[in-house]
């Protein structure tokens, strides 16, 4: 749910990075944080366990620039990927405007990817959203690993409707900003549609 503030001439949108445990959601945000001009970003918050697994969420506020005199701000969140944190994932999806589904390209994680995508669809549904209608992009992360699955196979399993998708290696930053730009673009287009 975007927030348009005419008083401060700002628009705020919420983007959630979703995906199975250890797929690289936090790494995406860390890369964005490290590569963004300090004037355009706020503090990154990570609510993580002692072993640096996301416990509740990571949060990164980002300013993208102005559209028609309105400052556009995106609040990026990750969810905890581990299966047993489902209650937390549901909470973080509240008020979402756009979703990035980060898939782990390793062959042995394919089942976890499918399970997480099903979980995303179900949790969005519980919040009154439809995965097929909300702005969503898919990122195939860890493409650099030797055990990466065949890309066409991943597309068939995880992106049958051919929504925008990107290959990535989040540790090196490959595909990270392309993914972010695509989801942000989708969210702004939705906003345009809603305003009509």
């Amino acid at each position, binding site marked *: 749910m975007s927030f348009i503030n005419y008083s401060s001439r700002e628009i705020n949108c919420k983007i959630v990075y979703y995906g199975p445990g250890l797929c690289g959601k936090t790494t995406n945000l860390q890369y964005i944080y490290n590569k963004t001009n300090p004037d355009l970003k706020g503090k990154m918050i990570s609510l993580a366990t002692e072993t640096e697994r996301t416990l*509740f969420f990571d949060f990164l506020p980002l300013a993208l620039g102005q559209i028609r005199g309105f400052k556009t701000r995106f609040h990026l969140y990750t969810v905890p990927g581990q299966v047993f944190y489902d209650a937390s994932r549901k*909470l973080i999806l509240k*008020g979402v405007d756009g979703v990035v589904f980060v898939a782990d390209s390793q062959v042995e994680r394919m089942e976890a990817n499918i399970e997480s995508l099903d979980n995303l669809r179900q949790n969005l549904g519980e919040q009154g959203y439809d995965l097929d209608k909300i702005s969503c992009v898919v990122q195939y992360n860890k493409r650099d690993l030797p055990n990466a699955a065949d890309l066409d196979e991943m597309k068939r399993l995880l992106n049958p409707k051919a929504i925008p998708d990107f290959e990535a290696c989040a540790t090196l930053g490959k595909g990270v900003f392309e993914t972010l730009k695509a989801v942000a673009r989708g969210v702004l287009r939705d906003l*345009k549609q809603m*305003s009509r």
Partner: protein
Amino acid sequence: MHDTQLVMYDEDFRKILAVTQRLVKDANAKGVFVVDRNGQLISEAGEMRGIDTTSLASLTAGCIAATGGLAKIVGEEEFPVHFHQGQRDNLHITLIAGRIILVVVFDERSSLGLVRLRVKKAGSQLARVFEEIQKKSDQGRGAGTPFAEITDEDIDNLFSV
């Protein structure tokens, strides 16, 4: 259907700010913050200039969301009032009308009793303002915003740098 978009005009903002500023005085608070349940800061007042309000808003929303989840597990609808006691500063957090979060930061110059009392009044005033905002939104006053006019080029220009 999920939450509708929150559109706040200058007149709404001024009303909210007036309630926020009055609460700072009435409750002897260090700072008062109004936050949307989804983690967006709406208004702030008090002497706490310079703190990271974006993070404050996001974490407050996370806190309310987590305890709301806990409430449902034990069979409650919500835990609408939270109090966090620190060594110097304390936080009083109230969920208003199920949608807006009112955060009051106070120290030894005030007391929990006073804050509770003042928050009650301010909370009902804020609830009325947000009810009006919701009505406007339901009547479609949000339609025809500048965003109806944005072009794909405008959007692409954001990413051209």
